């Protein structure tokens, strides 16, 4: 009975970080999606100089640990722009995820057969039109499985934003474990919450995959 009581108190405390984790992840994924899509199109169809620039971004950002990007954004950039810890953390995660998503979408764009582009141009579409209405819709479908993987990784990377003081699930678990000296209980609750979030995310993406599957 006492264990149940402890579990309930611990859960009630840690679950308050759930919304923070979800918000950070959602912001990061959205920012990363916007960056990734634009960069991938530029990488595949852009001017050679643009392609070089995008490759450089992708290589450099993927080479740097996310925690370093968070620190740079929070401690250096926010001297000039006043960023709250939440936004510094979420934007940094999004900036990092953008590089990975660039690669995901680049692969997907390149996996669409070149004949599709040629055919679209042959019936009089501009390059932009062809990308928009012929290549991208197919590429997005191809990208979904890999993107779902990235989504779960960003969810777990969201624990890093605590380094600048955002109280998400993991930090709340640390706080409880420091107070109650029951680390197993506290981190067990955190584990369950992350597991639930990951399951929901993957289920939603699988539904999307089924819903938009190409009928060939």
């Amino acid at each position, binding site marked *: 009975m006492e264990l149940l009581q402890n579990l309930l108190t611990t859960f*009630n405390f840690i679950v308050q970080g759930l919304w923070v984790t979800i918000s950070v992840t959602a912001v990061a994924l959205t920012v990363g999606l916007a960056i990734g899509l634009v960069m991938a199109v530029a990488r595949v169809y852009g001017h050679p100089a643009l392609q070089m620039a995008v490759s450089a971004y992708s290589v450099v950002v993927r080479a740097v*640990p996310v925690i*370093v990007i968070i*620190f740079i954004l929070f*401690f250096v950039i926010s001297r*000039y722009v006043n960023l709250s810890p939440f936004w510094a953390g979420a934007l940094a995660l999004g900036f990092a995820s953008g590089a990975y998503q660039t690669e995901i979408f680049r692969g997907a764009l390149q996996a669409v057969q070149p004949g599709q582009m040629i055919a679209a141009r042959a019936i009089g579409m501009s390059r932009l039109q062809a990308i928009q209405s012929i290549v991208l819709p197919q590429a997005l479908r191809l990208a979904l499985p890999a993107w779902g993987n990235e989504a779960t990784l960003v969810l777990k990377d969201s624990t890093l934003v*605590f*380094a600048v*003081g955002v109280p998400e699930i993991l930090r709340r678990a640390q706080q409880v474990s420091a*107070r109650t000296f029951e680390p197993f209980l506290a981190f067990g609750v955190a584990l369950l919450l992350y597991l639930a979030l990951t399951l929901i995310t993957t289920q939603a993406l699988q539904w999307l995959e089924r819903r938009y599957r190409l009928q060939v």
Partner: protein
Amino acid sequence: MKKQMLVIPALIAVILAISACGGTPAAQPTQPPAQPTQPAAPAEGKLAQIRAAGKLIVGTSADYPPYESIDANGNFVGFDMDLIRAIGEKLGVEVEIRDMPFDSLIASLQEGKIDAVIAAMQATAERDEKVDFTIPYRMTKDAFIGAGNTTIIMTKPEDAAGLTIGVQTGTVQEGWIQKNLVAKGLTPADKVFSYERADQAALDLASGRLQLVLMDAEPALELAKQNGLKVLLVTETTAEGGKSIAIPEGASDLKAELDRIIQGLIDDGTVKALEEKHGLP
């Protein structure tokens, strides 16, 4: 976790080194300009900025009870938290507490994200290069402990002379024993035993191999409770330094005011009452 703790300060150091090349002093965009209602204070002083904002932003690492932790309702509680609120009251400003990892506290202070740090922090020489410290609000204390059935009675640290004693290797306590008991010939060198960890010494104390153990007071009380040992003496004499509030480098006006308030709180017994409230030796 342990690994990450080592990595983070290194990263912060790198980033700060990079950012220092920019040569721009840390701006404090969150601070509104000093209001004309306080003409006495210099406009550019840190203290004046805090007074003008009406708010002291304090960083802590809320995972170190009884100094600082978060209760089930999400409130910051503990000795440090009560103390900083009392200080805020004397300053006449509201206190806003922000939780972050211990490793990020100094960097946040340097970058002006927070005005002060209270986190059971000792003013070590390394930290002192980066930030300034107030006078200590609580001295570090040591405890002599003995076996549960011991008949030794101690009133001062020198009463340990001649007795078999255990200490942790490389600690301040070991240094004190060597300097004040062994070097003066009060205790033979072969009666001093150094252990890798203090709790190992406590085990030998329980089994009768040692007569005394000298160690940090707070873990000593915990060990004594767990292993049925007896706390013989709690003292500041053998310890070095104390816990201070960290403030930005060069904020001399803030330091002077905080020093004055802390001394006041020590003198009027507030600190003592808070120590008792939180069960600190």
